[in-house]
């Protein structure tokens, strides 16, 4: 296995839906080098995709002149992914989605992205730039949580 500790990989994407797949593939490659299991890599890919889609749609309003930045950093036992956009960020977390209310037409059927991110990674944090010049979401998966996720999914 390649020693990736202390390395950083950066990608910039246009704010065009579909390009989140580039970030997914990059995150998967780094996670594989780091030794994460296939199951955790799939979790990370979905979380990264949702973070990128939020950045493109809500942060950059699908303005293709604005890019979404992805920074992947590794330490001894974790992989951190930051997804950056030019938006002002979120002021508060939305309530968790309610499938019953959605199916009965009482709640927008959309709005699963942030919920999935929080469920699929070990840590998720939404950060607003204090000067109002952008925001980012920070995702972390940890190698020492591998076994816990295996047990949860059994």
């Amino acid at each position, binding site marked *: 296995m390649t020693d990736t500790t202390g390395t950083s990989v950066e990608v910039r994407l246009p704010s*065009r*839906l*579909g*390009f*989140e*797949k*580039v970030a997914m593939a990059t995150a998967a490659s780094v996670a594989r080098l780091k030794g994460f299991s296939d*199951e955790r890599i*799939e*979790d990370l890919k*979905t979380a990264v*995709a*949702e973070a990128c*889609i939020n950045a493109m749609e809500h942060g950059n309003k699908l303005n293709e002149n604005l890019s979404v930045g992805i920074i992947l950093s590794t330490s001894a036992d974790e992989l951190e992914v930051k997804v950056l956009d030019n938006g002002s960020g979120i002021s508060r977390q939305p309530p968790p*989605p309610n*499938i*019953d209310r*959605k*199916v*009965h*037409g009482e709640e*927008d*059927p*959309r*709005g*699963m*992205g942030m*919920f*999935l991110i929080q*469920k699929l990674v070990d840590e998720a944090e939404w950060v607003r730039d204090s000067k109002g010049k952008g925001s980012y979401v920070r995702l972390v998966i940890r190698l020492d949580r591998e076994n816990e996720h295996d047990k949860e*999914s059994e």
Partner: protein
Amino acid sequence: MQADTKTTIDRTTGANGVSISVLRFTGDISSTSKESVLGAWQSVGSNDPVLLDFTKVDYINSSGIALIIQMLMEADKTGQKVAAFGLTPHFQKVFTMVGISRYAGLYKDEPTAAASL
């Protein structure tokens, strides 16, 4: 960059000879899939149970999940039963996380799913 969604409609027979509509999806299910997914749903009879075939789907994002929920909304209105098969283990987990599995049974293959309806 996103793979187009193609949806074909088949028919099969389930337990007790019940007629079942099968929606077979190919490609991605995302924000660009609305016409293909919901258009196909509108083509099936409102009395038949429905199978959703994800065998040839590689990528589903939250916008795609919203389309699946919209199909379940329609099924709920008419009392139609819905089951799904062919999802990867990851997307079975995601569908269970968001609660879709409470409204559409998730099965490993078509015969098992058809037998549930």
